[in-house]
């Protein structure tokens, strides 16, 4: 565009159509400049700047960056670590391998994820967003802090299979990480604590609250009749577990997938209580349209199959959630309306936000 403008200035006035074409370019350029200056003012002159924006409708976050103040350099270090396969034993798998932004940091089209040497895990890689409001991590809630959670996948033999001490020495021996830690934390001696704090800054800053649903709630978008219907159906049948505005009540429930739980007892592995057998964390429905496959083992490929499970596929067991004993009765039309509503929960701003992308 600059080249064309330059041509216009030097060879201007050749023939009208071309001149008009050049003028159009000029207008567009000026428009872009004005817009970018305006947005500069609004966003402190750089849309790469990170901050933790508490959505007005959300409850107070669980993770408050206590002892780990969110800073630009800390966030960027966390982002670099998140996308760096150096965290794995053979330097092939990064956090981002199984948590892809385009699908809200789930693992697209993977029931289970492959770690190093193609080894498969046992549970579906969860989507990552609004982590600051989560009080526990993993499908069974076994991890109690976003700061220590990454130690799980880093050291799991079928995921990244690395030791924390090896990771630290690998990071320390690079030419760039020590100075990044210096910038972020004032120390160039890398420790696991600082590495984990950087990762926590990056992950906890991932706030997703700009879906069409959010825009509808704050009056900047409208729902069509299907979406409105679907919202009503959601409130009637889904809301009690997938509670707004996080679209999860953060509880653990048995949603009738199996009759026995020998393969994966879920929450009971953590609480040691038989009454928690077969219970898994209620996932958020935000961004649900892009995070297939579904359930803790990724058994359903589509939201349609998920809804059908609740309509006709509930399996009875002693720990089945009492609200699901008779399933959820929905007509075909109601199912379609519900799907329309679920589609409004995709936050395109979030999944396209360059601040969370590999740089």
């Amino acid at each position, binding site marked *: 565009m600059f080249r064309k403008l330059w041509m216009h200035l030097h060879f201007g006035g050749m023939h009208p159509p071309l001149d008009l074409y050049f003028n159009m370019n000029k207008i567009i350029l000026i428009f872009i400049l004005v817009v970018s200056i305006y947005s500069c003012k609004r966003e402190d002159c750089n849309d790469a700047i990170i901050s933790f924006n508490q959505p007005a409708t959300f409850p107070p976050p669980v993770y408050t960056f206590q*002892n*780990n103040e969110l800073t630009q350099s800390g966030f960027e270090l966390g982002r670099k670590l998140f996308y760096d396969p150096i965290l794995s034993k053979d330097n092939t798998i990064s956090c981002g391998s199984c948590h892809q932004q385009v699908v809200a940091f789930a693992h697209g089209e993977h029931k289970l994820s492959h770690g190093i040497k193609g080894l498969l895990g046992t549970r579906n890689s969860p989507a990552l967003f609004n982590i600051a409001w989560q009080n526990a991590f*993993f499908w069974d809630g*076994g*991890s*109690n*802090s*976003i*700061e*220590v959670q990454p*130690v*799980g996948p880093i*050291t*799991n033999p079928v995921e990244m299979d690395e*030791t*924390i*001490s090896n990771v*630290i020495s690998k990071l320390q021996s690079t030419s760039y990480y020590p100075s990044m830690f210096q910038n972020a934390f004032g120390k160039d001696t890398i*420790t*696991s*604590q600082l590495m*984990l*704090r950087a990762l*926590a800054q990056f992950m906890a800053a991932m706030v997703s609250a700009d879906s069409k649903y959010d825009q509808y709630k704050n009056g900047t978008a409208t729902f069509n009749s299907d979406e409105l219907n679907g919202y009503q159906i959601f409130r009637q049948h889904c809301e009690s577990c997938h509670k707004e505005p996080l679209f999860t009540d953060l509880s653990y429930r048995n949603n009738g997938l199996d009759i026995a739980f020998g393969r994966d007892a879920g929450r009971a*592995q*953590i*609480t*040691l*209580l038989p009454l928690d057998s077969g219970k898994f964390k209620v996932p958020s429905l935000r961004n649900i349209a892009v995070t297939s496959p579904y359930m803790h083992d990724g058994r359903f490929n589509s939201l349609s199959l998920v809804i059908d499970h609740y309509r006709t596929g509930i399996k009875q067991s002693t720990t089945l959630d009492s609200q699901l004993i008779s399933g959820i009765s929905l007509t075909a039309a109601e199912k379609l309306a519900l799907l329309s509503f679920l589609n409004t929960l995709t936050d395109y701003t979030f999944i396209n936000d360059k601040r969370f992308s590999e740089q």
Partner: protein
Amino acid sequence: MKNYKSILVILSIGITSCSSCKKDDDNATTTYQPGSVTLEYENVVNGIHVDISGGTNYKNAAGDSFNITLLKYYISNVELLKSDGSYYKVPESYYLINEANVSMHKAVMSDVPGGVYTGIRYMVGVDSTRNVSGAQTGALDVGNLMFWTWNSGYIFFKLEGTSPSAISGTNPTGDYTYHIGGFKQSTGANMRTITAAFGENLTVDGSREAEIHTTVDIQELFKNPVDISLAVDNDVMSPGPVATKIANNYVDMFQFEHIHNAK
């Protein structure tokens, strides 16, 4: 004769200064300088320093033969009992004792207020607060391999080795693994508190030596109040009833031995 006299004079000076020493110790107005106190743990089996090469066969109370290849545990929340009956809580006192590393048989607590101490109280394990406070550093660094990632929390005590009693179809080498942890009341809070009286005064005063020696006899893990059989319990790597049983057993493993307090 002259020699005798001078010896007597020296002796009497010595005695006088000694008794004045004692007086000083008891005198509340005496000013003591802050100093460091060292905890030293000697890991033994049947009173003999433990061999973690795996090359020594021991026999436990249940009659199982076993060897030892790894021994690590946390000592934390150290409190020193002052002569006035109150406790001085040593801040940030988290120490990892690792038999494989001689420098980790001791824990040095610096800047302990000067004064006279008569006992000690500490935790084997890590308090619940630090189990839920995110990424830690120092002794509590997750890189020390004393942390459960799948069910967040510190492993308080690790003992590993092999035993013929543990051999089975799925465990042909007879490995036994005791990873004892768990801080939640709901699944068994396995932190244990050890209390000991020195039976004499430990004076902290500047550079004066102040060491507290404790022996840790691994045999005690296998008995009292209940015998642990390596044929039955040989794979303990989560909180729960078996971990609690072992933690109850190892409370009396930590036996205060003596202090070193030379000027």
